[in-house]
């Protein structure tokens, strides 16, 4: 087992462990911090899967911007934990959700049966995203040539989101 | 007071900022030049600074500056004070304690047996000097460094007050500043 395999195992385990921690932690801020750790593990996995651009973007956008905004909101709201008997819904609901999640997992694994535990293609395969300087170029090609329309649509979506948030904030000010 | 109106150039902000930066950097380079010359021993460091290197260099105090008290003396070395209590009465901080006794010379009515000033209470108003009819108390020693490890060091007795050395330290006190 080489260094790459060890790192893959560590970060895969970390991603799963921190995901479970997020679901089970009671304090929202700690849950958010665990989620950040989860995201960093995923970013490392992306880098190991020859997607360094996505890995760095994950850290920049998800961990560096979205989750900071999230923490900002949590701390600003100053949610009191008092008067809340449990972080979870009732036991029946938990059991049902557990069953449903297990079913979901089984279904997905069953559906993914067509992808055997085959080794990943070598990075130098023709058409692969590549690791070096051309990684950015190839992703950009995919993004702006074939996905140009979707890119524009995402731009409109983001603008809509910005306007929506502004409207909500404005109404609060007037009250 | 109305807010002063800013011109357009001032509102652009950057020109004004660069003016300020030019001023501070001019100071920087001028002082750096003088510091360099001073390090080579070519001139005094005073040209590079407006501050005073305090413990080594002291600002000359004006004569009217009110500093630590002293008691003036007659020719024979005894205090001029006649224990009239004018200063203790005038003192707003109530920091002067005088105990009077007979003076052996029949021409003089009284003299202080004890004359204590509690400097931890004194407000340096100088009323005691104004009130004294005999010019027996003055605040012209030029000493301001009244800091001791113990509060008792700040209570000056008659013997100490008769000493007009600005660096004098009460016998019962340990001074904070042991430099010089």
């Amino acid at each position, binding site marked *: 087992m080489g260094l790459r395999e060890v790192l893959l195992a560590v970060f895969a385990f970390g991603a*799963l462990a921190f995901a*479970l921690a997020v679901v089970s932690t009671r304090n929202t801020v700690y849950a958010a911090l665990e989620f950040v750790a989860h995201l960093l593990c995923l970013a490392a996995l992306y880098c190991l899967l020859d997607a360094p651009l996505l890995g760095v973007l994950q850290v920049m956008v998800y961990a560096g911007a979205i989750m900071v905004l999230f923490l900002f909101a949590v701390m600003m709201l100053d949610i009191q934990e008092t008067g*809340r008997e449990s972080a979870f819904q009732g036991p029946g609901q938990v059991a049902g959700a557990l069953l449903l999640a297990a079913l979901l*997992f089984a279904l997905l694994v069953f559906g*993914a049966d067509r992808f055997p535990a085959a080794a990943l293609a070598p990075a130098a395969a023709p058409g692969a995203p590549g690791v070096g300087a051309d990684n950015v170029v190839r992703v950009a090609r*995919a993004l702006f040539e074939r*996905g140009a329309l979707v890119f524009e649509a995402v731009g409109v979506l983001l603008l809509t989101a910005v306007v929506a948030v502004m409207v909500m904030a404005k109404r609060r000010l007037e009250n | 007071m109305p807010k002063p109106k800013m011109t357009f150039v001032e509102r652009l902000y950057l020109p004004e900022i660069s003016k300020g930066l030019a001023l501070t950097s001019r100071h920087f380079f001028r002082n750096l030049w003088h510091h360099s010359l001073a390090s080579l021993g070519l001139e005094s460091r005073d040209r590079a600074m407006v501050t005073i290197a305090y413990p080594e260099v002291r600002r000359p105090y004006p004569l009217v500056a009110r500093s630590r008290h002293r008691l003036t003396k007659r020719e024979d070395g005894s205090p001029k004070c006649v224990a009239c209590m004018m200063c203790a009465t005038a003192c707003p901080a109530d920091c002067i304690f005088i105990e009077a006794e007979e003076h052996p010379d029949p021409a003089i009515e009284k003299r202080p047996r004890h004359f204590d000033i509690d400097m931890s209470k004194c407000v340096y108003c100088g009323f005691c000097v104004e009130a004294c009819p005999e010019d027996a108390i003055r605040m012209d020693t030029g000493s301001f460094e009244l800091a001791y490890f113990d509060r008792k060091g700040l209570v000056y007795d008659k013997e100490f007050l008769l000493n007009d050395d600005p660096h004098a330290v009460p016998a019962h006190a340990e001074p904070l500043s042991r430099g010089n």
Partner: protein
Amino acid sequence: MFGVGFFLALAFALFAVGAFGVLTRRDPLVMFMCIEMMFNSGNLALVALSRYLGLASGHALVFFVVAVAAAEVAVGLGIIIAIFRTEKDVNVDHLSELKG
């Protein structure tokens, strides 16, 4: 061992964990994070499959998912803050009162 199947299994497991969290937690902020976790498991599957199939288009898709997630968080947090300002509490149970 670390074939594409491994990463797909990891992605599915993360998806299931996220789904479990959404269904059971009361705190809407944590529910939010669990939804993000499900987004991310999709991203992981996309990256792994891109690597497997030697395509860059999976990476482009991940870009779009991240952008959508950012929009979702912005609006979602705005809604949660707005609710908190009026309700002084963000328990999901209380929010069911919004039902018409």
